[in-house]
């Protein structure tokens, strides 16, 4: 019996069609809420700005070290949408580059934290009652019992202050949340009939973990990832604000808020610019996250 029969070909076609319809359904449900569409478009715009910062920013050279004192402290005008800072740099351009760092941080932190956390959570939930479960859960609990920002700050304080270490600090503080989430979901699914059936059929552990337990949880995990993205920026900005993260002249949003806040209240636009940038990112991810949660709410 070689080759694919007509029946099998039809079956594969049907599967593909069902998958396409599923995507269309998800998109349709997502489209229903205007706010989530707004969130998605905001993210796309910001992402675009971040990637093509060099072209979007009117004064890309102002991003790093640049001095032009006679142009300093200018209020918002036509040439400088958000004015200039104490070195004469265009605030708007710096914020644009700040977005780039922000998205870099989100990308790095989440791509480290989410896989690690989810895998650990799956393992802990699947191997209930074993030593490994106890270790993973207790360890996560310990990390969680400190206020997140405090933990992140203390880790960052031990390391050299730069943006990369700030990302590391945030990652080290964030991973247990995904363990907890996945763990609690896995535990409730662990003894469901379909899992027990797969086990009795001799499915490999990897298969059960990733093809049976994980797919159901993807919706919730995805929602959390989206909502978290905004908070990652928040913590990162807080670390930089305090001075333990990116250092001047790096155009990190948190660093800028801190730097420019010294010139309040006279030159208030300087500090509010990057602050508004942070708020925009958080808002956008909140809206998007709400939309994604609504999509998966019915599942």
């Amino acid at each position: 019996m070689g080759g694919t029969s007509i029946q099998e070909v039809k079956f594969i076609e049907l599967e593909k069609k069902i998958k396409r319809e599923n995507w269309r359904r998800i998109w349709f449900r997502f489209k229903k809420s205007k706010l989530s569409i707004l969130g998605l478009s905001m993210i796309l715009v910001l992402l675009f700005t971040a990637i093509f910062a060099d072209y979007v920013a009117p004064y890309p050279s102002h991003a790093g070290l640049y001095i032009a004192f006679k142009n300093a402290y200018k209020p918002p005008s036509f040439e400088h949408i958000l004015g200039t800072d104490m070195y004469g740099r265009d605030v708007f351009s710096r914020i644009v580059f700040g977005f780039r760092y922000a998205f870099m941080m989100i990308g790095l932190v989440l791509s480290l934290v989410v896989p690690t956390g989810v895998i650990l959570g799956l393992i802990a939930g699947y191997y209930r009652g074993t030593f490994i479960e106890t270790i993973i859960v207790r360890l996560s609990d310990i990390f969680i019992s400190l206020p997140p920002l405090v933990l992140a700050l203390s880790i960052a304080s031990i390391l050299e202050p730069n943006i990369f270490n700030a990302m590391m600090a945030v990652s080290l503080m964030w991973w247990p949340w995904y363990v907890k989430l996945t763990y609690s979901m896995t535990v409730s699914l662990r003894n469901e009939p379909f899992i027990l059936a797969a086990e009795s059929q001799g499915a490999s552990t990897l298969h059960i973990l990733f093809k049976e337990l994980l797919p159901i949880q993807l919706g919730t995990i995805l929602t959390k990832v989206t909502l978290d993205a905004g908070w990652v920026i928040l913590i990162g900005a807080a670390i930089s604000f305090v001075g333990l993260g990116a250092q001047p002249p790096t155009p990190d949003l948190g660093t800028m808020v801190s730097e420019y806040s010294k010139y309040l209240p006279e030159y208030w636009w300087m500090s509010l610019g990057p602050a508004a940038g942070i708020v925009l990112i958080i808002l956008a991810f909140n809206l998007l996250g709400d939309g994604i949660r609504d999509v998966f709410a019915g599942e």
Partner: protein
Amino acid sequence: MNQRMDIELTILKRLQNFLNNYYFRKILYSIVTLFGISILIFIIARVLPGDPARLALGPRAPEDVVEQYRKLLRLKEPIYVQYYYWLIDVFNGRFGLSLVTFRDVLTDIIEFLPATVELIIFTLIIDIVGAFSLGVLSGRKPNSFIDNSVRIFAYAGIAIPSFVWAIILQLILANWLDLLPAYGRLSLGIEVNRITGIVTLDSLLTGNVIAFIDAITHLIIPSLSLAIGCIAQEARILRSSLIENVNKDYVLNMYAHGIPGSTIFFKYALKPSMIPTITIMTLDMASMLGNAFLVELIFNWPGLSRYGITAMLRKDLNAIVGVVLVIGLAYTIASIIIDLVVSYLDPRVRYRR
């Protein structure tokens, strides 16, 4: 003979009941977790940095001084030995010397802690009052003007971080409108005798009304900055919980028996709705304690968090460890209290395995 065995059995049963008691187990677990936190902090402070002694003393300190410090920290010995001696020190109140103030860190903590306690308590008051009023107002009349305004406010409140609120409020209320002071805890020239360290309390205890009013005005903007984010989240959850519960069968049942609407709302709908709201308060407390670091910095508030930030910037390891330990302890106690409140509200929690 039989009587004795009966008595022994009852004692055993009582012991079993006690050990199984929900609260007891919770507290036990928290103590274990606290030890875990101490280990974590210890690892962060001693193991993570390559050379804690060098890190603390700076790159310009002479090598022999650093070597002395290394001996002091027992860095050559195995980790568990280091931890053991460190733990003994902590329990004896010896947190080590601060490199900034040259005093024992514990003394520093005792000096600065009350200011933060005062700030957090004031924030909590604003938070609870604000969240409940807004949540109830909003939930009572869904989709009304007030409900929609509260919802919009909630969205803004959640998206705007504490330190941004701090800057905005400071700008508007203090700088532009000149309603409230912009910095510090008391205005220049006003002094209060220190009894507890909590200025509002002390001023009341010594009958210094002017100072009391002054202290309150200084508290408002920092507390508000910390509280707004929390109020937004809690009001939102309270509102949606109320709306959901009001349509549940157990509430409709009360309507079916002709029980007055306000009794139903404020008793039978509110109590189950408070459960998720108060549960969220644990996380909000965590964010309050964390954001206090930024807010105290912005307002120059002489509290534990500002002390901690200074310590972190100067790599004052002992101080960092001390501050984080105290905050960890405070947060653990707060979580236990909140859990207690939740289990009082929701009896199902008490009886779950």
